[in-house]
């Protein structure tokens, strides 16, 4: 659906040139929710702005729905942009227009006739749950409501793609959840491709299918969220994930432990999360285990669990336990 090829974006001239993106390749599949995570200054904002050419790349190609946007003239680009919705961290609503007029705005730009606009806007008001606020002005709405208007406006021209530029970063946790849930609903209902950028792992974890980690203008890690989240390879990715459970994992590693015991990290994914694999295996092999740290949660809809355990007992039996648990389909990382 979206393909960036060798995209480079430089700012400034001569010696003061800074490279925000360097020869970046990225592919987003149709219908998926794709997350890009990175620290501020990593280039993620530039990246998403390149997808509708709000920022024109210095070099490289930007393909959206089979069209290379960088090759279009002004008029053609304006037409293509109507197929790409965008929402923003600070909502960017017209402060002088009512909720209704804000949502109608993209349709009026495209000279859609009045009755069609009314039908579409009412449908969208219902979708985002703002029927009661149609005549209010943005200043009278809460942050979450403003973002709902933003989403409705972005959907008005039936786009193929929705770009979310830090869409929940200005919202409190509860509102963030409700907005994310709305995005997920929209994704499922309309098979809309969604690209979002964020600096919060929790956002990625709750709705994304795939994720890319951006660092210093390049993608350092990319893959299914379950994959990247549970087995992060790059230090930056680890940092983002440790940000959540990091401290207690650190404490677990400091637990008393000597040559006669082994520290392991077990990862359960999917239905196995609810299986009693560990205790069954331990009973068979006769080893003991202590749970030092544990998480059970969900990535989008997929349950997962992660335990740091200390095995105690005969060395051979401990090895056997690890092998058996692996054979049952758990991922085991021996930490010592």
């Amino acid at each position, binding site marked *: 659906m979206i393909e960036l090829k060798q995209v480079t974006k430089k700012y400034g001239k001569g010696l003061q040139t800074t490279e925000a993106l360097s020869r970046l390749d990225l592919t987003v599949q149709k219908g998926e929710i794709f997350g890009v995570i990175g620290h501020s200054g990593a280039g993620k904002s530039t990246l998403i702005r390149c997808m509708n050419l*709000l920022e024109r790349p210095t070099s490289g190609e930007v393909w959206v729905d089979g069209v290379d946007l960088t090759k279009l003239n002004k008029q053609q680009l304006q037409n293509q942009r109507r197929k790409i919705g965008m929402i923003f961290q600070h909502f960017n609503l017209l402060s002088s227009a009512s909720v209704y007029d804000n949502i109608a705005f993209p349709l009026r730009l495209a000279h859609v006739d009045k009755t069609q606009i009314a039908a579409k806007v009412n449908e969208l008001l219902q979708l985002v749950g703002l029927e009661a606020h149609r005549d209010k002005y943005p200043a009278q709405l809460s942050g979450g409501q403003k973002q709902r208007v933003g989403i409705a406006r972005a959907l008005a021209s039936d786009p193929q793609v929705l*770009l979310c530029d830090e869409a929940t970063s200005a919202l409190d946790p509860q509102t963030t959840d409700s907005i994310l849930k709305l995005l997920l609903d929209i994704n499922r209902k309309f098979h809309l491709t969604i690209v979002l950028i964020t600096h919060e792992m929790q956002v990625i974890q709750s709705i994304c299918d795939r994720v890319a980690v951006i660092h210093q203008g390049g993608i350092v890690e990319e893959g299914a969220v379950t994959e990247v989240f549970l087995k992060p390879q790059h230090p930056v990715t680890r940092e983002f994930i440790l940000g959540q459970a990091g401290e207690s994992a650190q404490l677990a590693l400091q637990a008393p432990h000597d040559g006669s015991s082994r520290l392991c990290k077990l990862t359960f994914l999917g239905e196995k999360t609810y299986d009693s694999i560990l205790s069954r295996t331990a009973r068979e092999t006769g080893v003991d285990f202590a749970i030092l740290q544990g998480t059970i949660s969900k990535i989008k809809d997929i349950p997962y669990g992660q335990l740091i355990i200390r095995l105690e007992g005969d060395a051979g039996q401990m090895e056997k336990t690890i092998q058996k648990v692996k054979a049952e389909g758990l991922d085991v990382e021996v930490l010592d």
Partner: protein
Amino acid sequence: MWGLDFSQLDWNEISVASLDTLKMLAASSVFTFILGLPLGVLLYQTSRSSNAWVRTVYSVLSVIVNILRSVPFIILIVALIPFTIAIVGVSYGVLGTIPPLVIGAAPFFARLVETSLREVDRGVLEAAQSMGASTWQIILKVLLPEARPGLLAGATITVVTLVSYTAMSGMVGGGGLGDLAIRYGYYRYQKEVMIISVLFMIILVQLLQMAGDRLVKHFTRK
């Protein structure tokens, strides 16, 4: 009272002068807005361009606007006499005052327009751009409506400035209350005429400012 005698005032002449002032004010305001608004938008648009040529256009426009704003209005009236005659045929009276009023006030208003357009949140412009809005659509449907309270405040300031300009034009044979104040009050020592003229202008400015403030408030959504 203070040796003033208002019973001898020629009210007929005062009402004619008041009407003349209102005529000059109305006509010059309309033309100032018609010229100043596009000029302000042009200043704003050219100043933001990434194209070096367009920015040169901005610099040139900017210098012209600054020159017109720095020439004292009284000198501008005299300097513009040939231009005024070419346009309206006369260089005095109500008609002859309007061109210099417009030339004097339009650059001033254009700057105020430019300033209030700069106040518009860039994010909103970006959002409109992301929705495929053309440059004209952005100007007409985003910039101007979003800047409306600022534009109205600027228009109010401009009209008030025009009131004082019309008075100054009285020095060089323009009509209206300023002319009356100078002819009777200054040259003939009839303080009463001067006081009444000034009083009327104070009331006029007050009314204009109040109306302007009310409009600004009505259109402010923040």
